């Protein structure tokens, strides 16, 4: 929109470059450039959720010699993220910018990738497509595999088979987590149901607590969730004496009595891979899809809520997923009775990215 508009930062950069050129007779500004990774988070780094999962991985990379990590948290999905990313590039010399929130991609990452072709941009959602700048890209984990494992363990840890799920918004990745949680639970208990409550917001602690209480009042004895920071859900459920399954990062310390296991990202795998490729000067892949098979997911160590049978079944489920055994095996109906999946779906089938239904056995509605 404003390509003729000289931004203040570009002006400063031009000025600085001019000064540097004047000061250095040889005419080069930088010698061997170190590897600088800049990560932008939409919320606080220690939210027991999405942002913490990324930050934990960055902490691991900080220990690697030759890698500098810059982080900025609480960056809204507005022009603010462009400014954060630009200052990471211009002031800190970032070679790779990791934009970790869904809404960062378009237009912010795309525009900046065009403006800074020498810098790599990677975004944590499956949005990159052919035709987008080649120095941008996507990486993504199918966390629904983790929720499937949660479901397997929950189905064997729940006396009633009534599971509850506190969900934020009915977007495909959330729906896939709910459906996989159900399929996992049905694998170990064919009569299991999942009752879902949508809060409508990614972070709304009071309503998340209300939703958890409502599910417990409705008779659910295991609560799973997909909200930005699952801390409130897990603590409220623990306080009500029911069991919980985690999401995004480890919530095990929050529920010493009722924690079963949790679906956790292992972003350090992909971040280390990026850093290695940068160090070798090789190109980064534009699209990476992760799961249990390539060590990008893990399940939280089992808590006191998991029964021995649940632990055995969940471990077996993880082994199956590593060998590519599909979660979605048709024919499957949605909870309105329409057949939505005919045959077997590969766990990374792009059709699943557009999921817009809740399976039969899920009590809830997406509108």
């Amino acid at each position: 929109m404003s390509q003729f508009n000289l931004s203040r930062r570009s002006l400063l950069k031009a000025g600085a470059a001019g000064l540097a050129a004047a000061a250095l007779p040889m005419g080069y500004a930088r010698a061997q450039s170190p590897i600088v990774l800049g990560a932008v988070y939409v919320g606080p780094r220690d939210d027991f959720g999405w942002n913490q999962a990324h930050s934990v991985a960055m902490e691991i990379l900080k220990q690697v010699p030759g890698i500098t990590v810059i982080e900025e948290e609480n960056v809204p999905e507005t022009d603010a993220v462009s400014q954060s990313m630009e200052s990471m590039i211009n002031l800190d010399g970032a070679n790779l910018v990791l934009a970790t929130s869904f809404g960062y991609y378009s237009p912010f990452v795309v525009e900046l990738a065009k403006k800074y072709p020498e810098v790599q941009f990677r975004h944590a959602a499956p949005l990159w497509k052919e035709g987008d700048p080649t120095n941008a890209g996507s990486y993504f984990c199918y966390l629904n595999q983790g929720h499937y494992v949660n479901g397997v363990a929950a189905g064997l840890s729940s006396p009633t088979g009534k599971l509850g799920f506190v969900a934020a918004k009915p977007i495909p990745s959330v729906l896939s987590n709910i459906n996989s949680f159900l399929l996992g639970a049905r694998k170990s208990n064919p009569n299991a149901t999942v009752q879902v409550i949508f809060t409508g917001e990614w972070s709304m602690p009071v309503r998340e607590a209300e939703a958890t209480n409502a599910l417990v009042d409705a008779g659910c004895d295991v609560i799973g969730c997909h909200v930005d920071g699952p801390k409130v859900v897990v603590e409220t459920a623990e306080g009500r004496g029911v069991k919980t399954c985690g999401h995004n990062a480890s919530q095990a310390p929050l529920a010493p009595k009722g924690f079963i296991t949790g679906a956790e990202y292992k972003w350090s795998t992909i971040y280390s891979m990026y850093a290695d490729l940068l160090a070798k000067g090789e190109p980064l892949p534009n699209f990476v899809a992760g799961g249990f098979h390539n060590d990008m997911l893990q399940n939280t160590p089992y808590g006191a809520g998991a029964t021995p049978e649940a632990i055995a079944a969940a471990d077996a489920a993880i082994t199956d997923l590593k060998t590519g055994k599909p979660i979605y095996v048709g024919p499957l109906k949605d909870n309105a009775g329409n057949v939505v999946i005919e045959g077997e779906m590969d766990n990374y089938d792009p059709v699943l990215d557009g999921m817009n239904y809740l399976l039969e056995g899920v009590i809830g509605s997406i509108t």
Partner: protein
Amino acid sequence: MDNSIFIVLIAMLGGAIRVSTPFMFVALGECLTEKSGRINLGLEGNLVLGAMVAYAISFHTGNPWIGVLAAGGSGLILGALHGYICKLPKVNDIAVGIAIMSFGTGVAFFFGKPYIQPSAPRLNSIPLGDWTGNASLAQALQVNPLFFVGILLAVLMSWAFANTRWGLIVRMTGDSAASARAMGVSVDLVRFIATTIGGMLAGIGGSFLSLYYPGSWNQGLSSGQGLMAVALVIFARWDPIRCIWAALLFGAAGAIGPSLQSVGITQGYYFFNAAPYILTLFIMIASARSKGAAREAPGELSITK
């Protein structure tokens, strides 16, 4: 179906008791401030800072009630700051309020960073429903002592406004600063004290959020409840008792969305989740049409002047 209605009603009762307390404290604090003729929009900042301070102090001392006191203290300081700045000539109280809101939340986020992860001791509740023999009713009737403190405070404030010399002075300052000055009352001092105490109440409200329900400290904890509570005062037309009803109504309406989904009415949850706001809007429209509404607003408020 009858059973479903029962579940939703119990959830609304529980929601009213669980969710209303912070609204109550902030609304009472704002009510006192506005009665004295000033608007403090910054109570959201007091609420968030109070929540953070209460959690931090409870974590360090191991006693949540000391946390509650400290939250009141932090609110008191922010309130006093607002009261003092507004005393200066040509200062707009609404603008200062917005500044205090940003300041309070900013300070809370800055110092609250190390307290997001650890678990602090929480306030206990009084089980009032065990006699019912119904598990969900018993759960709904788990009441935090602060809830009763809030109600007591409202009754006390209402009585004091009507029956004491102090109450009269506050009301007079709010309705006509000129008459107050003619009576030899220091308008600035009265407003300073009212704003300070109002700020303290909002801080205590914050401690309820972090130490009881939802019972943890994080940056999204309040999600604008302090601002809603300020609006509730106008909705309650500057009457402490009506502030309590407004807070209870707001809490009950907030429980509608999740509880309807829990009994299987799953369509349209965005609409039901918005119930508190829709309800407030309609009652506001209905009540604003009466001529009495304009008479009940303190005459010195910068929105009515």
